[in-house]
């Protein structure tokens, strides 16, 4: 499966990574190469094989549905590029 420039643009958009228009053809070429490598998987007969969901057979552990932590807004915000009045600040989202 070959990736064209339009598909590369769409993938970059979905991944939320800005790619300059001039860089799209090279990106498309690299993605095509990697996906071409994956095409080998089509040789494998996977009839009746379930996709692996857990590498070790185990039941996911559960815990009581109670609050175990909290009250640390200052520490949660400590690394934020922009925090104001106890909140993360971002550009305006709603007009």
């Amino acid at each position: 499966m070959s990736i064209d420039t339009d598909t590369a643009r769409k993938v970059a958009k979905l991944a939320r990574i800005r790619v300059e228009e001039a860089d799209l053809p090279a990106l498309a070429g690299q993605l095509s190469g990697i996906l071409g490598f994956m095409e080998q998987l089509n040789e494998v007969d996977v009839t009746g094989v379930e996709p692996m969901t857990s590498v070790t057979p185990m039941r996911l552990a559960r815990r009581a549905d109670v609050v175990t932590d909290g009250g640390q807004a200052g520490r949660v915000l400590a690394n934020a590029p922009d925090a104001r009045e106890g909140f993360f600040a971002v550009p305006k989202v709603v007009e």
Partner: protein
Amino acid sequence: MNANELTIAAARDALRKGDLTAVDLTMSCLTAMDAGDGLNAFVHKTPEIALDQARAADARLAQGDAPAMCGIPLGIKDLFCTKGVPSQAGSNILKGFRPEYESTVTTRLFEAGAVMLGKLNMDEFAMGSSNETSCYGPAVNPWKVDDRQLTPGGSSGGSAAAVAADLCLAATGTDTGGSIRQPAAFTGIVGIKPTYGRVSRWGIVAFASSLDQAGPMTKTVRDAAIFLQAMAGHDPKDSTSANLAVPDFEAALTGDIRGTTIGIPKEYRMDGMPDEIEALWARGIAMMKDAGARIVDISLPHTKYALPAYYVIAPAEASSNLARYDGVRYGHRAKLTAGDGITEMYEKTRAEGFGPEVQRRIMVGTYVLSAGFYDAYYNRARRVRALIKRDFELAFAEGIDAILTPATPSSAFGLGEMASADPVEMYLNDVFTVTVNLAGLPGIAVPVGLDRRGLPLGLQLIGRPWAEGDLLNHAHVLETAAGFVAKADKWW
């Protein structure tokens, strides 16, 4: 011999006997660390923390009940979150990030009295096999044979270089497709990836959560046993952490493997494999046979499909895990221009913060998970993964105790040599190691010899799930038989 050149086992015994203090041992490592800047292994040094921890270790040693790791100076891979200390995962997107919390692994190590010298270089988000994707620039292999600088491997390249050059006694690593074992083999040290679930992933920056596992990188197999003991164990904060007792790994090193069965998988004999790797493997087989093991040829028929399956699954998981780096909660945020909204903030932040290989893998992952391709790529790869795991299960069901393979397809290559190569060519470095992650098994790289240029080569042993003790014992036998004692000549 300087104290920084000691093994964990020797330092532990000397500390307990009072022949050495943790402060003196730490000072010796700090001196070596500062003299080792040419290796670019340590990227954030923490001498004040180290000396505080060393003083506390000496007080504890004086009480007479100190655990094995008490007073042992370690390097910590930059992927581990360490409270108040930069933890960047080798990425510009986490520049300035100082976690408010401590990873479970480092918490355990510090509770056992271990000393942190600093944080170690690595490929960005552990994505790479040469340490060249790091935002700090590559770590350098202490081994060299001419004027070229060689890669220490990746992604745990800083860990491997630091241990091989005696800047620390041992280091933490992580392994998603070979990132402990490949650098260990390239630098002539020991590296073990434990069974998936043996070591808590909590507080380790996630790459591909179903494959990631932390482990020790050490000078000897005995040190790996001691170090792993201190890292391992159930952690309620990691839902995939196994609630199993941790056996005494060092006690498992009996040196006796008589009557065990070692499998030799024919699919690991790759086309175009260098003669030297083939010869090294044959020597390893002879050593295990001489030690009394039975050698059996086995088949792991889906081996060929492990790399393509891995390069679907790992990027898919990474694209999801790395979605959190959006410039809102931590790390880098791009400077915005008038009119930029939140989407522009995400897109510019991620374009500036992530390097090219990480961007590529996020986009590959995004593609294979996107509507219309999820079944064709992601689900197919997960089906093939189930078959790869079944290959191993069938081998173990037939009585195989351990599997012996090469660790890497070559010895260390030159920094920059792969710069113009196709990304897929770099991925081939993981060809012998990646199956182990897909199957969740323990695997260990052991240094066995030098190639004709004088660079280290290693072999890999693969064990049954949860049988790290038995695996370490086999590795110990191989290590003893190989008698690898060579060290890199100091040039840095």
